């Protein structure tokens, strides 16, 4: 579904991603693991067109998207749940959700239906639908951001460290919800530092270090690898 080929990304003269290739098939949940500064967020920004690739190719369903604008990519079905830039604090929960669908024609038509789906995933959002988004707790805000992303009825969901800054019980809950979204046939690209939790959701994973893919493999291969066990799982 998504194919990244020989991607190079640089901020000015500082190159952050080196000759990176990865692919995500239909109905797949793929993890990208790596420490801070490995280039995970830059990779995501390049996929959704927030930063432009220096060279290389990104195709989605066979269509090259590396020269498209962010809003076109979003309408085409890739939606990202960003790490920091999150929601519109001055709008209510429901307005935030509606905004996710309002500017994407095919999602707009199914807005009410999708809202019910999002509420079924996150019942707390229904309870709080009239509250200003900025007044909710960090965990609820994170749920709202995922909900808003789902509102655009994406073909592929990209999550940038969904567990970052959440208390442990919420992290577990977050990954349970991701599992549910996965069961509804969503293609997911999950960037995480929390490899232990991430491994419970993904089908396949990549490990990124210093802007390069250091390793690629199935859950078993990753969880049995000596380097990963020591560096990420603390075993």
């Amino acid at each position: 579904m998504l194919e990244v080929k020989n991607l190079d990304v640089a901020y000015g003269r500082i190159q952050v991603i080196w000759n990176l290739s990865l692919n995500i098939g239909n109905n797949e949940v793929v993890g990208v693991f790596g420490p801070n500064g490995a280039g995970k967020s830059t990779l995501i920004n390049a996929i959704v067109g927030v930063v432009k690739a220096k060279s290389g190719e990104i195709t989605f369903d066979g269509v090259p998207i590396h020269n498209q604008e962010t809003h076109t990519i979003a309408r085409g079905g890739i939606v990202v749940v960003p790490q920091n830039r999150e929601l519109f604090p001055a709008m209510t929960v429901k307005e935030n959700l509606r905004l996710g669908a309002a500017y994407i024609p095919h999602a707009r038509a199914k807005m009410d239906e999708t809202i019910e789906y999002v509420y079924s995933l996150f019942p707390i959002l229904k309870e709080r639908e009239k509250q200003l988004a900025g007044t909710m707790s960090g965990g609820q805000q994170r749920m709202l951001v995922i909900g808003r992303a789902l509102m655009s009825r994406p073909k592929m969901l990209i999550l940038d460290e969904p567990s970052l800054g959440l208390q442990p019980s919420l992290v577990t809950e977050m990954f349970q919800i991701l599992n549910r979204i996965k069961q509804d046939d969503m293609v997911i690209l999950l960037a995480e530092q929390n490899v232990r939790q991430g491994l419970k959701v993904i089908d396949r994973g990549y490990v990124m270090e210093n802007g390069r893919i250091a390793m690629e493999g199935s859950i078993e291969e990753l969880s049995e690898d000596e380097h990963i066990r020591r560096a990420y799982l603390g075993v």
Partner: protein
Amino acid sequence: MRNKAMLIVAAFVIAAASLPLFAGPYFLSVFNTIFVYMSLALTWDIMLRTGQLSYGTAGLFGLGAYASALLVAKAGLNPLVSIAAGGAFAGLLAFFLGFGVLRLRKIYFSITTLALTTVFSVIIRNLPRLTGGASGTVLPRALFNGDPGKNYWMIYCLALAVIAISVWLSKSKTHYAINAIRNDEITARSSGIDVFKYLLFIFVLTSTIQGVIGAFYAQQYAFVQPEATFSMNFLLLPLAMALVGGVYSTIGPVVGAVLLGLVSEYLKLIMPYGHLIVYGIIIVLVVLFMPQGITRAFAKLFTRKMQVGGVDSASLRD
């Protein structure tokens, strides 16, 4: 509650419309000026709702004024038609300039729009054959032969139209798009919002209005001159009015314009020298102690809810 508010608004609309029936030319000219600045304050605020702080208000005002004045003086166009043409000219120019300046953000956008104002005025000063150069152009006749009542009705209708546009925008799909852009442009883009398209639309819309108001102003006084027509007053006063009344709303700039317009007129009467100092102090005090504007401060007193015109106060903190 809603009906009561509608009644109050209707009462104001009718009272303002009937002003020429009982007020003398002095009061009409005071309110005429207030409506000019009110319209400009609203357009400045509408642009600000997208997160772009424009300093180009005076520039597009002046362009509309010159386009309209020259069309009448050189081509003999009907003054009323020339007012529409002045707006169209400002809007068209904003459309082309938009492809450049709307790539800029924050201070770079502001400074560039300010620079454009100066550029327009310098170009006009240096085309003496066409524009009359530094001494300007005087038109043969003032709009409606200078009839204060008709001029008042004209600017009153224009101001009502701008208010209607502002209200319509705050209820439209565009409202959420530009709110989203102001809050966080990247998130707006990832929600499928074509940021440039919306910015261009708002820039062209507000510039067109500024052009129309400038054209009306030029026709009313039958006079354009670089210093006076591109005066910084057409930027700074609307800006102060919107800030004092409360930005990101329709009611804010409207109340701010009436309030500051009346206060400045009264101060001019009681102290011919130094009234601008007092005026400045009032603006500073309001901005310091009611940073959300007078309308929100009052709304808070009465309702404890910090909402005016559907725009929330939380968005002011960014």
